[in-house]
C-alpha cells in the first residue's frame, strides 16, 4: 500500500511537472496586426518564435478600421485574462493598439514594428494624393482630347504612338487611388484615420503618456525599418516590392516618351497650329505627373508638409522612419529592410533579438545560456532560421548599453578566456594561462570605461570621456559583444550577423 502511494505521488509530481512547467516558464506574447491585415500576417513568425522560445504565442484579431480605443477594448476582452508578464508585439497600427492596451492591462514588454508612433503622414495627405492622381488622370484625358483635335492628314501617326504612354498614366492613377482608398482603407471617414494623422489630438495625448509607459512597462523596443529603394516605385513598392522597380521604369519610360513625342510635335508643327501646340503641351503636362509619380508618393508618406513642397524621407513604403521611433524605448534600426507589408514576416529575427536580449525570454530547452559554437556563433540557442543564433545576455557577453569600468572583465562561458579592461586603459583579451591574445593598444590612456553602445559601436573611453578606440560597428543598433568559448571576441548585429571579430578563434 505504501509502495503504491509513493508510486502515485511520483506520477502526480511528474504530471504536475509535465503540465505545470510550460505554463510556469512560457511567457505569453500577443502579436497584433495593423491596417488592412489580420492575424494571419503573424502566423509564420509567431509560430516560429513559439517553437524556438519559451513563449506562448497569441495572435490577436482586431477591427483595424475602428478607433484605437475600440481596438484596445477588443484586446482586453480577449486577452485581459493573460498575466502581467505578457509581452505585446504590434505591427504598424497594431503597435499603437498595444500602447493603448497598456492603459488597461499591465505588460512586461512591448515591441512596436513599423508603427506610426508619431503619426502616418499619408493620413494627412489623402486628399492631396487622390488629387494628384486625379490631375494625372485629367492630364491624360486632356492629352487624348488634344489628339482628337489634330489634323489627321498631317498627324495621323501621333495617336498610336502616344496611346500606350497615356494609357499607362491612366492605369497607375486608377490603381493608386483604388489601392489607397479601398485596399488600405485610408479614407477620412474611417475612425482610425482620424487618430493617426500627424499632429492628431489622439496621438498627442498618447505620446504625452510616454513617460507613463516608460515607468510602467519594464521593457520597450521600437523596431524602425527603412525599406530598400524606398524612394522608387510609388505605392507599387508597398503592393508588390519585387516588381516595383520594373513598374517604376515603365512609368519613367512613359514620361520620357511623352516628352519625346511632345518635342516631335513641337519640332514638326507650325507654331500657329494651335491644335498641335496644345497637344504638345498637353503631353508635357501628362509627363510631369508621371515623372513625379514615385516622388510625390514618397513625399505623401514622408511628413505632413504639402506634397508639392515636401521631401522624400526614409520610410518603409508607408510609414516614415522618424515616426516609427518609439520615444524612450530601445531602438533597433533596420536599413535596407522589407516594405511595410512584409515586416511581420521578414523582421522576425529582430523580434527574436528583442525578446531574448531585452525581455529575458529564454530559448526553448535551454536551462541556461549555452556556450558558443566555436568560430561561428556563441550565444547558444537556435536561430529563427533554424541555425545557430546569437543572443546577448548570456555568459561572456555585453548587451547594448552595458559598460565595463577599469578593473572589470568578462569571461567566456567555458571560463577559458577573459576580456579585461585594465587600469592602464588597455582592453585586453587573455587566455586562461595569462597569454594576451588581443589588445586595443590603448594603454597609457587613463582608464574610463568600455561601452557596448546602443548604436552598435564598442568604444573605449578614457577618463576624460574621449574615445580612444572603437570597433567601428556603429549603425547597428542592438549589436552586442561576446567572448566566445573558442577565444574569439565577436560583435554581432541584433539579427545575428557578425560585424567585427578579434580574429583569435582557436587560440
Amino acid at each position: 500500500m505504501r509502495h503504491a502511494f509513493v508510486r502515485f505521488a511520483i506520477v502526480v509530481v511528474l504530471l504536475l511537472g509535465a503540465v505545470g512547467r510550460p505554463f510556469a516558464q512560457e511567457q505569453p506574447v500577443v502579436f497584433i496586426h495593423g491596417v488592412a491585415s489580420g492575424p494571419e500576417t503573424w502566423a509564420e513568425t509567431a509560430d516560429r518564435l513559439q517553437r524556438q522560445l519559451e513563449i506562448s504565442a497569441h495572435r490577436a484579431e482586431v477591427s483595424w478600421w475602428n478607433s484605437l480605443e475600440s481596438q484596445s477594448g477588443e484586446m482586453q476582452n480577449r486577452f485581459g485574462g493573460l498575466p502581467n508578464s505578457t509581452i505585446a508585439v504590434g505591427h504598424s497600427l497594431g503597435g499603437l493598439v498595444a500602447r493603448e492596451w497598456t492603459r488597461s492591462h499591465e505588460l512586461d514588454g512591448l515591441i512596436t514594428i513599423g508603427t506610426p508612433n508619431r503619426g502616418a503622414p499619408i493620413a494627412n495627405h489623402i486628399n492631396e494624393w487622390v488629387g494628384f492622381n486625379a490631375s494625372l488622370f485629367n492630364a491624360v484625358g486632356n492629352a487624348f482630347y488634344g489628339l482628337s483635335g489634330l489634323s489627321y492628314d498631317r498627324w495621323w501617326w501621333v495617336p498610336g504612338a502616344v496611346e500606350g504612354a497615356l494609357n499607362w498614366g491612366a492605369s497607375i492613377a486608377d490603381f493608386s487611388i483604388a489601392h489607397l482608398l479601398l485596399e488600405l482603407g485610408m479614407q477620412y471617414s474611417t475612425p482610425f484615420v482620424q487618430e493617426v494623422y500627424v499632429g492628431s489630438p489622439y496621438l498627442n495625448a498618447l505620446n504625452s503618456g510616454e513617460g507613463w509607459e516608460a515607468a510602467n512597462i519594464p521593457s520597450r523596443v521600437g523596431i524602425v525599418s527603412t525599406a530598400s529603394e524606398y524612394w522608387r516605385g510609388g505605392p507599387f513598392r508597398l503592393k508588390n516590392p519585387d516588381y516595383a522597380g520594373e513598374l517604376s521604369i515603365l512609368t519613367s519610360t512613359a514620361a520620357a516618351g511623352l516628352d519625346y513625342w511632345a518635342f516631335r510635335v513641337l519640332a514638326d508643327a507650325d507654331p500657329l497650329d494651335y491644335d498641335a501646340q496644345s497637344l504638345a503641351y498637353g503631353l508635357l503636362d501628362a509627363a510631369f505627373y508621371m515623372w513625379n509619380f514615385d516622388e510625390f508618393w514618397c513625399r505623401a508618406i514622408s511628413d505632413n508638409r504639402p506634397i508639392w513642397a515636401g521631401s522624400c524621407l526614409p520610410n518603409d513604403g508607408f510609414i516614415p522612419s522618424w515616426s516609427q521611433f518609439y520615444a524612450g524605448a530601445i531602438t533597433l534600426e533596420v536599413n535596407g529592410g522589407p516594405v511595410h507589408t512584409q515586416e511581420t514576416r521578414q523582421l522576425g529575427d529582430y523580434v527574436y533579438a528583442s525578446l531574448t536580449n531585452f525581455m529575458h525570454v529564454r530559448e526553448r530547452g535551454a536551462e541556461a545560456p549555452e556556450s558558443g559554437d566555436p568560430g561561428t556563433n556563441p550565444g547558444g540557442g537556435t536561430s529563427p532560421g533554424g541555425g545557430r543564433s546569437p543572443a546577448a545576455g548570456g555568459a561572456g557577453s555585453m548587451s547594448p548599453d552595458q559598460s565595463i569600468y577599469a578593473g572589470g572583465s568578462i569571461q567566456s562561458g567555458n571560463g577559458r578566456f577573459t576580456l579585461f579592461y585594465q587600469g592602464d586603459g588597455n582592453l585586453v583579451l587573455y587566455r586562461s594561462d595569462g597569454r594576451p591574445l588581443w589588445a586595443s593598444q590603448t594603454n597609457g590612456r587613463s582608464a574610463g570605461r568600455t561601452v557596448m553602445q546602443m548604436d552598435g559601436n564598442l568604444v573605449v573611453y578614457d577618463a576624460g570621456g574621449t574615445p580612444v578606440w572603437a570597433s567601428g560597428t556603429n549603425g547597428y543598433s542592438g549589436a552586442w559583444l561576446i567572448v566566445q568559448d573558442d577565444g574569439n571576441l565577436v560583435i554581432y548585429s541584433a539579427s545575428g550577423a557578425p560585424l567585427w571579430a578579434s580574429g583569435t578563434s582557436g587560440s
Partner: protein
Amino acid sequence: MSNAQGKPLVVACAMALAIAVPSLRADVRSAPGPQDHWNRFTADVTIRRSVVQAGTEVTASRTPPTMYRWERVLSGAGWKTTMEVKGSGRAAFVTPTGALQEVAPVVARIEDDGGDEGPRFYGADGKRLRLPSSADRGKMGVGDEVFASADALLPAEVAEPRPGTGAAPGRDWIDAILPSLDQRGARAERLQRRFGLSKGTWRGRDRYVGSTGEDTIEVLIDPTWAVPVEINVAHAGTLRSHATFGYEPGPRGSMVRRSSHVERSLDDTPAGAGSRMVTDVELANVQLEERR
C-alpha cells in the same frame, strides 16, 4: 475677340497673369536664312513644370527641371532623333544617414530612326528598356490589362510593327524652332489663311483672332518676323491658356525660339484664379551643322 468692347482678349479676361512680351533683337536687315547644307541639329532642352495654386509662387511644386540633349541628324530616309536625358526631374531623396542623394534617370536615351519602328528607350547601362515579360506580369499584382495598354510604348517579347512617323526628310521643320526671315512671307500667308486679316495691333504686335466652337484664340504676332509672341485661348469667354514665346538671334542669321512659357488652367476657374500648370521650355546651345 468677341467681347462687346472689342478689347484684346488678354484685357477682357482680366487675368492676374504677368505678361512678358519679348522683343526680337536681331538685326533683321543682315539676317539671311539658314543654309540648306546642314544635316545636324542640336540643342539643350530644359523643361520646367509646376502646378501653381491660386495666389502661390511658381516654385510651389519644388520639382527640378527635366533636361535633354536633343539631336536630329539627317539619315537616309529621314531625320534620326536622339534625346539624351540629362536630368530626370526627380528631386534628390534623403538617405537614412540624412544625406541627399540624386536619383539617376531611369531612361538615359531615346532614339528614333524616323522609320516605322518608333522610338527606342535605353537605360543608363545602355541596354534597351523593355516591358516586363508576360511571365513576370502575372506576378506583379497589377492587372494584365494595364500592361496591354502599355504595349504600344515598349516592346515585350514581340515588337509590334509600328506605322511610319511621317517625318519629312526636308529641312522645313526647322522653321518652327529657328524661324528665318526668308520664310517670313510663308508664315504670314499661313497666318492669314488660318485667322484672316489682322484685327489691329496690341502693344506693337499684330493681333489675330480666330474661333473654333466655344474656343477663341488670340495670337499676337511680331510684325517683322511674322512669328507668334503670345497666344491666348478662351473657352466660353473664360481664359484657359496663356502662352508667350521668347526669341533670340540664332545660328545662320535666323531667330531661335529660345523659350516658351505656357500657363494652362487645370480646373474650370479662369486661368490665374484656380490651379494651373505652368510649363517653361528653354532651348540653349542651338546649333546647325553640316556633317559629312
